[in-house]
């Protein structure tokens, strides 16, 4: 029988929630890495027991953790406990993220006040394991860049073409920092990768990362001097259905958007949403036209409108939305749902999951019709991923 494993990153550690295919009873494991911020965890599609985690701290910097047994045991790749041979220093590199300044000189980016600011590594926001190779993982970085490991996380190298695009001085941080938070691998074309940066916009490579192009035509953002500029849009998240890799859905700062041509052109599909501000967006595992968002009141009030936590579902690929509320708090709810904190499983009755800044992780085993809180009182949830296990 199938089962699911929900990987939850929080402000104070990681939690792993497991259930059988009914998704009614849950086992909770954690906190792992107690006290540390876990920005993201994700398992390899090739080897689901291999899970990577981004562990960060303002004091101690970036750490990458890896489990090879489904999250029971963890280690920092390349940092074996044993001493190196006499006379040799250990050379762990799993937490070494150094920009490739030789290939793409470290420039400056735009600061909040419009002045230029040095590019500095802060943390890893997102880990995207390869669809083919369990040792290959992409990492989305703040300050924005994309890195790659091909040795299971022992060492990381920047893919410099993105930062070297030439538009870096126009990129600027959002409230959470200048982060590359979304990485989408095209399952049909190994050379095509989509990424998104807050606040620069979305980019696409069609040659495995050598060159990148902005894909922001059709976006309109009132908070930049030219609302339709090629660069500067605060994209919050992008989602794709793997069977239709050319169709993308985007939750921008404001506006829910759709592209049917791999991001070359976007059109707004906010429709009848009560507000089109929000962070998460995801696609039903078995219905490529069914998408989910969680509307948030505004960019200055990061909580649901009217104190009602509502997931909105469109079965028409946007424009026509219905509120899903059964089992969700419908009064006095003032939590947020951050950009990487929604995921779907692959079961026939597609499960939808999301975590809140109030520490709840909600699950729906029936595509959003009904919801239950798997846990109520975790630290603020930063990310949610789901593995469907057979």
């Amino acid at each position: 029988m199938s089962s699911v494993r929900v990987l939850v990153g929080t402000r104070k550690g990681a939690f792993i929630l497991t259930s059988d295919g009914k998704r009614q009873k849950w086992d909770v494991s954690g906190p792992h890495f107690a006290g540390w911020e876990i920005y993201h965890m994700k398992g390899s599609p090739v080897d689901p027991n291999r899970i990577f985690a981004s562990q960060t701290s303002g004091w101690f910097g970036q750490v990458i953790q890896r489990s090879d047994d489904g999250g029971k045991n963890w280690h920092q790749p390349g940092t074996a406990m044993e001493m190196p041979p006499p006379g040799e220093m250990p050379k762990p590199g799993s937490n070494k993220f150094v920009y490739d300044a030789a290939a793409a000189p470290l420039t400056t980016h735009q600061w909040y006040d419009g002045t230029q600011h040095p590019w500095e590594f802060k943390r890893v926001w997102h880990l995207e394991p390869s669809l083919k190779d369990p040792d290959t993982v992409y990492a989305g970085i703040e300050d924005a860049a994309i890195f790659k490991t091909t040795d299971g996380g022992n060492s990381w190298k920047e893919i410099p073409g993105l930062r070297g695009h030439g538009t870096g001085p126009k990129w600027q941080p959002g409230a959470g920092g200048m982060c590359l938070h979304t990485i989408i691998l095209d399952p049909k074309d190994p050379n095509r990768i989509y990424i998104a940066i807050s606040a620069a916009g979305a980019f696409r490579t069609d040659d495995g990362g050598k060159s990148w192009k902005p894909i922001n035509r059709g976006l309109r953002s009132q908070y930049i001097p030219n609302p339709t500029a090629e660069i500067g849009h605060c994209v919050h998240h992008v989602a794709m259905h793997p069977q239709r890799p050319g169709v993308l859905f985007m939750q921008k700062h404001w506006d829910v958007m759709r592209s049917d041509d791999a991001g070359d052109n976007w059109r707004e599909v906010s429709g009848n949403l009560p507000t089109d501000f929000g962070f998460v967006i995801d696609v039903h595992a078995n219905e490529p036209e069914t998408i989910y968002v969680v509307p948030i009141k505004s960019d200055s009030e990061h909580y649901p409108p009217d104190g009602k936590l509502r997931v909105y579902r469109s079965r028409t690929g946007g424009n026509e939305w219905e509120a899903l509320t059964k089992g969700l708090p419908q009064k006095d709810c003032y939590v947020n749902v951050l950009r990487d904190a929604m995921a779907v499983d692959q079961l026939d009755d597609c499960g939808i999951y999301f975590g809140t800044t109030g520490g709840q992780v909600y699950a729906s085993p029936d595509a959003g019709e009904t919801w239950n809180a798997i846990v109520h009182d975790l630290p603020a949830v930063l990310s949610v991923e789901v593995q469907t296990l057979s």
Partner: protein
Amino acid sequence: MIRVIIPPHLRTLAKVDGEVTLQIEGRVTQRSVLDALEAKYPMLMGTIRDHDTGKRRAFLRFFACEEDLTHELPDAPLPDAVASGKEPFVVLGAIAGGL
């Protein structure tokens, strides 16, 4: 034998409880202590000193013998009490409440 106290989060990473002890040949300095610490516990590389620059991370401080040694030169000798193991070399996080 040099005694070193590291913050709880780093003890978790290094999988140690309490103080760490190190054997150092030659001069006992911030640099030689941290080099020995990272050699024995490679998972700490990059967490106290930046991987790229080798400089102390901004929110960490170094104390010993009731003195703040944070801004001493990395190759300056540490107090005799640290070199003899009478007093520990303390790495700690700057006080901040955080989120």
